[in-house]
């Protein structure tokens, strides 16, 4: 029973942070049809900036709980900067070109941003542990969990609910759904698709940065963390279906729970369990769990 509880909680915690990153990735793909490899760098920048700012915040003696707001402010600030820099400054000039070329452009951006990170922060690892222990812990049997981890689950649920409400209960959201469904038709109906592209990219980048910002207090922020997370985020969107919001939720849960179950029940397979699940999904649902088969345009 304790093991089952642990698998459930661990799986949800893992899924929550992966969902934050994967949501931004799938949102950008859904709206813009861009497989944004640079998304890993958004995560890394969020983590580095958050670790640096939290260190400064606590060293300056500001109120402890203000550090949570600081993480969100950093994510939003970086999201806007990256959104404008990459979408307006670079990707806008690439629209209409082959998808492979755009993927290569985002890959090149990823490599450059990784170098920028080393240029700014150097090769050293950073950590900002204070917020992680600020909320205390909670005990389930012999298991202790940090309340910060449980708050991450809450944040992911809030974002999932917020995204659903935005898409289904607001006029702008319905217009965005129209863009996701068929960009050309949406443009023909007078929707300013380019503006939706920019706003979507900024939101997606912000979510990537937010994932890094909220993970910074948990991890040692070191060069290479962006690569690690982008591989997992890709696995999630492939499992869930490229561009599907529901797919990102279910994909994150599948990955999180599969990994937790492997660690608790069969540690030898931990390394490849995520990719085994992904392979199984692709065998039976090549478009992912939540993608509808598209009609071929003639």
């Amino acid at each position, binding site marked *: 029973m304790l*093991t089952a509880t642990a698998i459930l909680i661990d799986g949800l915690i893992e899924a929550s942070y992966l969902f934050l990153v994967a949501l931004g990735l799938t949102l950008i793909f859904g709206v813009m049809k861009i497989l944004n490899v640079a998304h890993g760098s958004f995560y890394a920048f969020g983590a580095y900036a958050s670790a640096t700012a939290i260190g400064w915040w606590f060293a300056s003696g500001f109120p402890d709980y203000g550090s949570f707001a600081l993480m969100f402010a950093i994510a939003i600030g970086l999201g806007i900067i990256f959104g404008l820099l990459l979408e307006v400054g670079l990707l806008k000039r690439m629209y209409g070109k082959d998808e492979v070329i755009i993927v290569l452009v985002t890959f090149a951006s990823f490599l450059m941003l990784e170098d920028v990170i080393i240029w700014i922060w150097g*090769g050293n690892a950073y950590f900002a542990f204070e917020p992680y222990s600020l909320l205390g*812990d909670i005990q389930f049997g*012999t298991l202790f969990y940090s309340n910060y981890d449980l708050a991450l689950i809450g944040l992911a649920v809030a974002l999932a609910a917020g995204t659903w409400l935005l898409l289904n209960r607001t006029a702008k959201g319905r217009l965005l759904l129209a863009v996701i469904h068929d960009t050309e038709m949406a443009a023909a109906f007078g929707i300013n698709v380019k503006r939706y592209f920019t706003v979507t990219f900024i939101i997606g980048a912000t979510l990537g940065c937010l994932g890094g910002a909220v993970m910074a207090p948990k*991890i040692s922020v070191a060069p*290479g963390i962006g690569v*690690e997370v982008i591989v997992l985020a890709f696995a999630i969107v492939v499992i869930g279906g490229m561009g599907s919001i529901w797919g990102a939720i279910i994909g994150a849960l599948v990955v999180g729970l599969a990994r937790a179950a492997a660690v*608790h029940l069969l540690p030898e397979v931990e390394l490849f369990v995520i990719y085994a699940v992904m392979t199984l999904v692709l065998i039976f649902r090549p478009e992912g769990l939540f993608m509808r088969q598209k009609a071929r345009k003639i």
Partner: protein
Amino acid sequence: MSIKNLLRGTSVAACLVAGAMTAISGAAQAQEKLKVGVVGFYTGAAAGPFGIPARNAAELMVEAINAGNVPAPYNTKGAGGMEIEAVYIDESGGTTKQVTEYRNMVQRQGVDAVIGYISSGSCLAVAPVAEELKTFTILFDCGTPRIFEDADYQYVFRTSAHATMDSVGAARYIATKFGDTKTYQGINQNYAWGQDSWRDFDLAMQSVLPGSEAAEPLWPKIFQGQYGAEISRLSVSPPEVLHTSFWGGDLESFILQSSARSLHKRTKMLLTTGESVTQRLGRKLPDGVIIGARGPYGILAKETELSKWLSQTFADRFGTKPTFPSYHMAQAFIAMKIAYDNAAAASGGSKPSVDDVAAGLRHKTFEAFGTTIDMKLGKGQQAITPTAYGIAKWDSDTGEQTITDVVTYPAECVNPPAGVNSVDWIKGGMQGAKC
């Protein structure tokens, strides 16, 4: 002039000419540079805890050796009278890249010697190339015992002990200090280093504490950074001792995450490379964890003139004390100086051949920074050193990490004898160990 006087005069002239020639040759050698490739992870996850401290030590040693500022007996200028010029190469990018970089260093940049490599994968890949190119190479930090157990080398040396020492030392420490341990478990990175470390530790535990039992080990992937599920798994039924050979960011993340969830209060954590993060984590490293330093280095170092000099000079220059990768690098430079000094003496002043240089280090025993290096294994190419373990304790008065309950094990207690395979030695009950 008589024939006798003529002969005498000729002899004197010949001596004068020979003397002048030797002086000219010596002066030329003094002006000649010894170009040394220094390789380590200067970017990437291993840079902070390993690559940068090692590079800092390299810079310090190059300057100190060139100026003759290293304490006696290493206080002569240069290596074999030559001024060292370092070329720094990043180890990041995989083994194929390292082989290319190595060839580039030797064949295009013209380095005379190479000191480097933190990753065991890099060492395994580069060693045969070094041999092929007949280039004097010192592996300063990588751990795998396979280098000199699977092959013979003439020009490749390793001046730090291999990983078997870390695991055997760790098991002996548990037996010494926590002899009633019944259960132990491992969490190690799922690649060669983690797997070998756990295998050796498990075998050594069965040898020194036969009544103890290992729980199923955990194998997170390298650079995973997130250990929530693993910590829960360990918390469900905590072992008495938890072994990990995690390093760098993975080690820091695991310590931060597990201490927030009080794992250290329910299991005795044994960190074989723990010393490398003591300064970076400071008070965030929980009291009571067992730490090793892959030898008696850093806060586990014995106080000698040489170790005090390194510690003080390093701290003055970089604002932080050296950790074990710095010691590994510094002792590799000392080994290189010894090799070139010996070779220069043997060659009578001319620039020594690579064979003379290799002979200058093979089977040698020398004092390094708080420890003795004995080039005893691998037909005189592989070092053995003592090792030490202790328990970390934060000193809030000084604001520094301290160490208690230190036990230092002699080199021949924790390293296999010459010519014996490490795994076979441990499996055979570590016969011949001199503790």
